[in-house]
């Protein structure tokens, strides 16, 4: 199978029939089977499709699948034209506007559709972005960089390191803010990672994604992107935050603190929530409304403290009834440096787990406790089990999110090999990941 055939998605009988007819994707073809005749443009097949059907786009615009049988004949009636993704005219940057860097890591924030073949192409360059989201021309001068094209579930701590370095480079060049386009699935983890690795930020770093793909008119991508760029250009704070829809409406974008944000819904536009903390600000009609008074002020003279290293030998372990404690032994044997437990309620695991934890602590593994309740603070002095765990050497991690705690411990072991220092750092509020007061929800 050649490259062209591989891209077509066809396999088996369907591929054989196409080969025999010497037709390519985009060609106008006629398929005859008994008395039935169908004409249309040959369309690529999804890689999950079966081997028996050929898809054509009819003149009416509809796609249909036609089964290939021994007496099906395919002939070419016209040569296809390749989709022409013409470059949009480059728009002039307004030198009076703030300079904003946009780093793409994957997750399309803007895209265009070729209605003829159904192909969707992401818009990634600055001029692409301007042409697809023209509002941006009036907000900022963009410097667009394509760092990776990764689905967010494929992002690893190594990528966090690269992202942190890329942000640092832009800041050294003197931008007024940085926007990072990111797939939403693991955007919360990345936000936490950047919060720890980009310390003493002079300008804001805003992560943005979309819950509805950018090729659809109802997508939240453009609104979120505009909100993120406005935030990067105008917010008074210099912190890592996530910009997404505040509600199901398109009316406002909310900015969450990087260490306190979590994706809490599989599909809604407002999937991201600030947990155990107030959101930072709201962007409405391109204006910033601050929601907290406690933040680090934007200051271009401040020097960024870049600490981009992470150590992947840290595990997140969620406890459940009847769980086999051998998993903890396995991590110890594999020389993991730290384990974050996601315990029940106020921070508990069953007593059948104690032995494994004792063993881990004895092997110098740092063990921290968070809660699978997500909202609230662990309280390990309330019940006997909690006090038992503390006695075993488990560290109570206050109101830190389990994901943030995991990222933080990876980052700690990227900075130090000293276990005692690591324990101290884990308990200390480094970048807003621990709040001393739990406030009632608004």
């Amino acid at each position: 199978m050649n490259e062209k055939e591989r891209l077509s998605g066809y396999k088996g009988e369907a591929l054989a029939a196409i080969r025999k007819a010497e037709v390519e994707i985009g060609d106008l073809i006629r398929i005859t089977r008994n008395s039935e005749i169908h004409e249309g443009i040959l369309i690529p097949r999804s890689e999950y499709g079966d081997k028996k059907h050929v898809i054509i786009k009819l003149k009416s615009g509809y796609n249909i699948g036609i089964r290939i049988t021994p007496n099906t004949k395919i002939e070419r009636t016209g040569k296809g034209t390749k989709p022409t993704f013409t470059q949009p005219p480059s728009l002039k940057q307004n030198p009076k506007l703030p300079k904003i860097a946009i780093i793409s890591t994957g997750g399309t924030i803007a895209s265009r559709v070729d209605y003829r073949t159904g192909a969707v192409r992401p818009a990634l360059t600055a001029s692409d972005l301007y042409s697809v989201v023209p509002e941006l021309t009036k907000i900022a001068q963009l410097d667009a960089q394509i760092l990776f094209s990764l689905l967010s579930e494929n992002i690893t701590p190594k990528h966090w390191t690269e992202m942190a370095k890329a942000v640092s480079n832009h800041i050294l060049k003197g931008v007024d803010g940085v926007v990072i386009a990111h797939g939403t699935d693991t955007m919360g983890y990345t936000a936490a990672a950047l919060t720890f690795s980009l310390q003493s930020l002079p300008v804001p770093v805003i992560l943005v994604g979309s819950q509805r793909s950018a090729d659809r008119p109802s997508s939240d991508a453009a609104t979120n992107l505009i909100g993120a760029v406005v935030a990067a250009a105008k917010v008074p704070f210099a912190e890592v935050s996530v910009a997404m829809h505040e509600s199901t409406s398109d009316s406002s974008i909310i900015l969450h603190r990087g260490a306190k944000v979590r994706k809490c819904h599989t599909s809604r536009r407002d999937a991201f929530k600030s947990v155990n903390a107030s959101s930072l600000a709201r962007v409405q009609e391109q204006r910033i409304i601050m929601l907290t008074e406690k933040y680090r002020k934007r200051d271009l003279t401040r020097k960024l403290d870049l600490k981009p290293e992470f150590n992947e030998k840290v595990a997140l372990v969620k406890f459940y009834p009847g769980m086999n404690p051998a998993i903890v032994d396995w991590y110890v044997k594999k020389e993991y440096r730290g384990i974050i437990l996601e315990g029940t309620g106020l921070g508990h695991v069953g007593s059948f787990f104690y032995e494994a934890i004792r063993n881990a602590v004895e092997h110098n593994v740092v063990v921290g406790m968070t809660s699978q309740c997500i909202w609230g603070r662990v309280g390990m002095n309330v019940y006997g089990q909690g006090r038992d765990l503390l006695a075993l050497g488990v560290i109570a991690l206050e109101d830190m999110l389990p994901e943030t705690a995991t990222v933080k411990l990876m980052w700690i072991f990227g900075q130090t090999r000293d276990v005692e220092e690591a324990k101290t750092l884990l308990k200390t509020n480094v970048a807003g990941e621990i709040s001393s007061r739990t406030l009632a929800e608004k």
Partner: protein
Amino acid sequence: MEIDYEKIGLKVGLEIHQQLDTSTKLFCNCEPKLFKEEPEITFLRRLRPTQSELGQIDPAAYFEFQKGLRILYEAERATSCLVEMDEEPPHPLNRQAVEITLTAALLMNAEPVDEIHVMRKAVIDGSNTTGFQRTCVIALHGEVKVGQKTVPILHVSLEEDAARKTGEEEGNIIHYRIDRLGIPLIEVATAPVIKSPTEAKEVALAIGGVLRATGKAKRGLGTIRQDLNISITDGGLVEIKGVQELELLPLVVKYEVQRQLGLVKISEELRARGMGEDIIEKEFFNVTDVFKQTKCRVLCKALEKNQQILALKLPKFRDIIKQELMPGFRLGTEMADRARFWGRVGGIFHTDELPAYGITADEVEKLGEAVEAEDQDAVVFVADNSENAEDALEAVVERAREAIKGVPDETRAPKPDGTTRYMRPRPGAARMYPETDIPPIQITEDDVERISSKLPELPKQKLERLMKEYKLNKKLAGQVLDSKYSLLFETIVKESKVSSTTVAAFLTETLKALKRDRVEIDKISEYQFRKVFGKIGAGELVKEALPDIIDWLSKNENKGVQEAIENLGLKIMSEIELRALIGKVIEENRKLIQEHHEDSFGILMSIVMNKLRGRVNAALVSKILKEKLKVAE
């Protein structure tokens, strides 16, 4: 004047959209139902036209987007979930809807596709929360017989119904209710072979009949909608979207033909006057000063708001703008519709209709001077803020230039009287791309065979069978066929042994009469109807009791037939009781019987029936009364 439709080359194609009566919507498990109450949930969205590499952005849609159009969606939890809100991916295609569509397609001899691919058709007027309508072709190349003619069916598709507009536009916000969004719709598209206004209705009727034959077509206003594309030889291709009443179809076609013929005439006349498109200039004159002292109320209001009056000269258009194209509809109306759409103004003024509306001859003269109009010219003006006024006049220029060319291709919306108004320019080639969230569905030969083997009867066959099998006359059989109870009719007759004419008359005429009296028939289940007739068949209830029972059941939901009988005291009277009662009535009316002799039967009959309505069989009363009268004489 009669129009020779053949001669002018009339070609009409129909697209029939019929809602299906499925248990859930097309892409989620919500109930396909509308709600009347205040919405529980509202949310505000914008739809951004997606850039296409080949097709251009729909100009009307892009215009609305730039104007900052926002859509306020209204929802209720019982009829919408996150899928309709575009907050959750669609669930797989509703299989029941596919089967119904296949049934309809096979009834029209169409060829089912081997694999169904759901497409996204870009629609960004707000009627779909996603910005596209999900639609798929189920079968191609069918036909329906209409009289002697065979009308080719291009395709039979299955698509989701759109959200419905509620209320008027306020500022830049339009309201849509998403209860209707996602209700399955069959779309049947004919080739443009219809040649006359009446034929349009006949074809629609024939297709509607086939769709109803599936037994799964929804009924009631708004459940079936027709789109028409109409063209004549020298005219344009005009699409009229969403005619809800069948009766209106011939009129809509007739008026559209009139309109197109009128426009062709206008174009000829303008050209005869030496007009070319480039003679109309986009030059707008601020004529606010001309109307400083005006008595015209509309203009006064605008001036109070500090708005401007902008004017435009249309060379050689004098007396053209007022030419009638449809009843109460002139070229000026077309221009005003355009101005309203593109400029969001209330309307326009033009010199063909002036002086009037409080505007004096003197003001008209000054207006002419201000724009340097000659005798043969017309002047159009509008009062609004300068941006809207300019957009409005630009639209008028556009429309005037089209008038020189002939009939513009466009999409129009029907009005209740059969005339139409401008809706938007015709979208370019349908912009469709695959709905990747829904896996394709294969239709196997087994599927087709299974459905083919149990196809319902076509309306004509069924009519003949109803007449033969149930001994119904043609009229009653036709009424049963058209009613939504045609299946129930057969079940009841078979189960209850009640006379078929009685059942048929009840399910058609009696129910219609009850509905007129505002009895909510829809609240009564088929099961309840069967139960009632079961009791009549078993001699426990008389048919005269039917209206009262139905009325009671409609007002007492969740109550049974037995309770209705008890509550209404409609338990049938035994013959012994009846005999005693008749005896008593005769006793009380001795004097009357002696005076009237034979004639007294009718009077006594009505006395007894009035006392016992719904509790006795009239034939039995008559029999006993006759016997007893004989004895009494």
